[in-house]
């Protein structure tokens, strides 16, 4: 530790830290622009010049390492003179028209100019002007002349987002921040550059010129979009959400949020919002009062229960729903006498149900990801599904951690990956068994009898051995299962194998939660239990009545075909939704409910952190918070225990006295570890995928489907966020195959092909990617273009459009 003095106050700080760190520790403010605690040091703005005793001239606080006995003065005559001088230089080329700048009122340059700027400019010459560039639908560079070249945006891209999309071109007075030949900025974290920009050079395109900073009220909230539960500052005016910014929480989202968290608010104000309860009568939708709609629902459910039994009623909720909503929905269902409730809509393997020792969770606090030195990430579209968790892994890798990947897609994670095993979906379990076997050999450790039997016939590949070696050489490893692994038809086998691997190398073992309440839904009891039907069963044997909470079955379910068949065949479908959507075709009642900004509630993130929030604005039109709707339904249906005054009361009933940590456990006991299927046999040098019943044979182009859920299609709100839908990530999905497969089909990249799964055929553009395993084709789910297809895992047939193949 080093002792120094800043403005006469003594402070002790770590060796190697800077004067700026020491000042921050002391609470002394030093003006700065280019310095940011999460970014590397550039020392380019020179605003933080301070006087250091015995130094011949002022030194930049952000780049000056502390030294024993150093005496720093931040407000001395020399320091202030230097700071004022820098300020005058910064303002030479910066336009002095704050009233017409979008950043006005929340501008660091404006603020600091108040303290250090002159009252008038001595500079009479022309200012330089910089043309704006189009860098995509999210960030506006409309005022590039305002740039002060702090390079925060550039460093953010390099260091946090992992891709350097912006850079500083040219030199000296001609320097400009730009992207390479006007390409768009496509990072899923790009919006943070808007926050980082200390001036009005990078601003939010959707928000630009809609409000002034001081007109906005800031309400704390929590992001529903992924399992992290990023803390948000929802900024509202006139009961309308006008923008979303991060609320800092070092343990969760640090000071970042993903673009999905930031820009999806546009979906809250989308024209498709459902604002009145509606009932379908004689095939026509009519708007009705809440009372009428709710009585209609309760009468309908009563009738079905009396006529066919309570088990004919089923409820599906998205994991983006609040804990309170999930809890009340399951309480309502159980009060009706049905256990058919589920929120794990994209899951397909439920064999671990009832055998898990607790709710699947991350297995460690989120912040611990940064401290891991080895990762095994299984079946995860990490960057797109968990942008900020990917960022944490990236930081760990930067500090020397090794990332190992087992997946069916070789997407660029924008970080060095030590080893990867890219295999077809059907080989995923086998790949893990190989690693397990290799790891046992590496560690000379004995496997359990069951595990030993399971991996007996498995031959570890070179990659498996490399991954095992990497894991064995670490001290703090983590084995993480992504969405793909959790949605896999062999999810529990994958989980068992991954658990064994984690056990062998002393790693933390965790699930990356897909949505806000992926972990919390278990604690809310929104799972069927021993007697109920799970999400797959409810559709496989169709029920007479369905209650859908936030669900759009063709986009949110594992098998949209099955889901739509069940919806169409049902006698009664009650859709609780914030939007008027496809449910108008099959539902009988549409109940307008409030999205997360218009209701109070709780999200329990993937580390088991329950974060409650209040509504930021009033519900739109006659929409109501879903917990209130469910409460009234409970009363109307005479279910006991539905007298809640507030969502907090619901939460307390659910969570008070519950030790969340005790409820989280990734261990599965009682599911036998099977020996994974042998690697696919080869034919003509290519592995042949196992085919499902009823599917076409290999000759007609049967491929194993690899389905991701595109980042901006993952939930109802983001699907309607206009600006996000214009990004590259929201482009219509393509069929992606190995180029040799395309040749065999006689298809060229860019051709439109027919993709058939089950009864449906859609037309998509084909794309080549030679990292795809043979026999697989990537076709995204959750998107309207592919909503007609079947299960996310399955066999699809790809054919050229003309159909004549030789």
């Amino acid at each position: 530790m080093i002792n120094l003095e800043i403005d006469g106050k003594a402070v002790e700080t770590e060796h190697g830290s800077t004067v700026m760190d020491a000042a921050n520790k002391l609470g002394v403010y030093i003006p700065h622009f280019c310095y940011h605690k999460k970014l590397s040091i550039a020392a380019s703005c020179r605003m933080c010049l301070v006087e250091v005793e015995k130094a011949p001239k002022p030194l930049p606080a952000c780049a000056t390492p502390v030294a024993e006995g150093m005496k720093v003065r931040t407000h001395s005559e020399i320091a202030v003179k230097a700071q004022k001088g820098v300020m005058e230089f910064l303002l030479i080329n910066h336009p002095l028209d704050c009233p017409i700048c979008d950043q006005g009122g929340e501008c660091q340059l404006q603020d600091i100019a108040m303290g250090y700027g002159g009252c008038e400019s001595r500079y009479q010459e022309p200012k330089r002007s910089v043309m704006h560039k189009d860098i995509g639908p999210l960030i506006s560079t409309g005022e590039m002349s305002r740039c002060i070249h702090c390079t925060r945006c550039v460093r953010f891209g390099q260091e946090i987002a992992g891709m350097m999309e912006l850079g500083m071109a040219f030199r000296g007075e001609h320097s400009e921040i730009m992207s390479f030949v006007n390409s768009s900025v496509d990072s899923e974290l790009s919006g943070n550059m808007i926050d980082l920009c200390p001036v009005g050079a990078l601003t939010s395109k959707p928000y630009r010129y809609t409000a002034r900073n001081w007109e906005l009220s800031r309400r704390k909230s929590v992001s529903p979009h992924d399992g992290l539960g990023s803390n948000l500052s929802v900024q509202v005016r006139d009961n309308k959400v006008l923008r979303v910014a991060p609320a800092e929480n070092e343990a969760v989202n640090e000071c970042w949020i993903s673009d999905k968290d930031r820009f999806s608010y546009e979906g809250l104000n989308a024209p498709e919002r459902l604002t009145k309860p509606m009932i379908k009568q004689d095939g026509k939708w009519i708007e009705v009062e809440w009372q009428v709609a709710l009585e209609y629902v309760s009468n309908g459910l009563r009738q079905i229960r009396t006529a066919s039994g309570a088990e004919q009623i089923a409820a599906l909720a998205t994991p983006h729903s609040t804990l309170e909503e999930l809890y009340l929905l399951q309480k309502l269902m159980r009060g009706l006498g049905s256990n058919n409730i589920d929120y794990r809509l994209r899951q397909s393997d439920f064999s671990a149900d009832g055998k898990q020792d607790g709710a699947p969770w991350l297995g460690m606090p989120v912040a611990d990801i940064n401290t891991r030195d080895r990762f095994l990430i299984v079946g995860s579209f990490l960057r797109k599904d968990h942008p900020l968790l990917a960022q944490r892994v990236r930081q760990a890798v930067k500090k020397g951690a090794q990332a190992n990947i087992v997946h069916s897609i070789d997407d660029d994670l924008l970080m060095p990956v030590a080893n990867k095993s890219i295999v077809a979906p059907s080989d995923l379990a086998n790949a893990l068994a190989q690693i397990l076997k290799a790891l046992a050999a590496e560690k000379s450790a004995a496997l359990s009898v069951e595990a030993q039997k399971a991996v007996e016939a498995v031959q570890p590949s070179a990659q498996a051995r490399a991954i095992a070696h990497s894991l064995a050489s670490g001290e703090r490893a983590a084995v993480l299962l992504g969405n793909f692994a959790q949605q896999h038809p062999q999810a529990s086998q994958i989980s068992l194998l991954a658990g064994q691997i984690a056990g062998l190398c002393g790693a933390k073992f965790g699930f990356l939660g897909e949505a806000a309440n992926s972990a919390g839904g278990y604690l809310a009891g929104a799972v069927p239990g021993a007697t109920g039907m799970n999400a797959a069963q409810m559709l496989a044997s169709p029920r007479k009545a369905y209650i859908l909470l936030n669900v759009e079955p063709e986009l949110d379910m594992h098998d949209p075909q099955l889901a739509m068949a069940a919806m169409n065949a049902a006698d009664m479908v009650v859709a609780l939704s914030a939007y008027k959507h496809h449910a108008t075709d099959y539902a009988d009642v549409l109940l307008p409910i409030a999205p997360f900004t218009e209701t109070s509630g709780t999200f329990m993130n993937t580390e088991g952190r329950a974060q409650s929030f209040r509504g930021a604005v009033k519900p739109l039109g006659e929409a109501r918070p879903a917990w209130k709707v469910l409460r009234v339904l409970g009363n109307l249906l005479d279910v006991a225990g539905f007298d809640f005054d507030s969502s907090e009361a619901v939460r307390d009933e659910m969570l008070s006295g519950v030790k969340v940590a005790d409820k989280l456990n990734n261990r599965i006991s009682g599911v036998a570890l099977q020996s994974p299927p042998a690697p696919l046999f080869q034919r003509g040098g290519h592995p042949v995928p196992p085919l499902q019943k009823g599917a076409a044979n290999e000759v007609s182009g049967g491929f194993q489907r690899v389905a991701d859920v595109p980042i901006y299609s993952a939930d109802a709100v983001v699907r309607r966020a206009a600006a996000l839908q214009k990004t590259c990530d929201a482009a219509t999905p393509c069929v992606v195959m190995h180029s040799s497969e395309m040749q065999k089909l006689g298809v060229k990249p860019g051709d439109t092909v027919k993709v058939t799964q089950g009864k449906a055929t859609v037309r998509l553009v084909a794309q080549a990617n030679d990292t795809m395993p043979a026999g697989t084709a990537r076709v995204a789910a959750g998107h309207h273009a592919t909503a007609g297809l079947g299960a996310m895992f399955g066999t699809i047939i790809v054919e050229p459009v003309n159909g004549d193949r030789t």
Partner: protein
Amino acid sequence: MLSEQIQARINRELNKYPADQKQSAVMAALRFVQDEKGWVATEDMADVATYLGMPQMAVYEVASFYHMYNLKPMGKHTITVCTNISCQLGGASDTVAYLESKLGIGFGGVTADGKFGLREGECMGACVDAPLFSIDNKRLCGCLTTEKIDQILAELDQS
């Protein structure tokens, strides 16, 4: 795509740096591109970026920062005239005027036959020979007079 010669030259350059620091060769790589085609197009920068495993924008930063990279076609021979203080005192403005009238182009221009491009340069560290210009950033010609300029241009014209 980078030509085989360029790739071979870059590979030679890469031997000088650690395997994980391939971007160190970026300036040399851009120079090789310019040697071959006279200028560096954005496509070439993208190719260099791929070849060296670095972000495209980082290559663009380098290419746009250094004056000696031509970001547009500059003819078969680029003549860069120093206009800094020593050369100015030595009569650089006359050199510039003479070149402009002789070639019929200004700074940044290329002659209609594509033979010569004219650029304004910064101090080349040879003030003793002022006024001076460089040819293709490789050959320095100093103590310029109109006769000497005629001679150099004629020589270049024939090459």
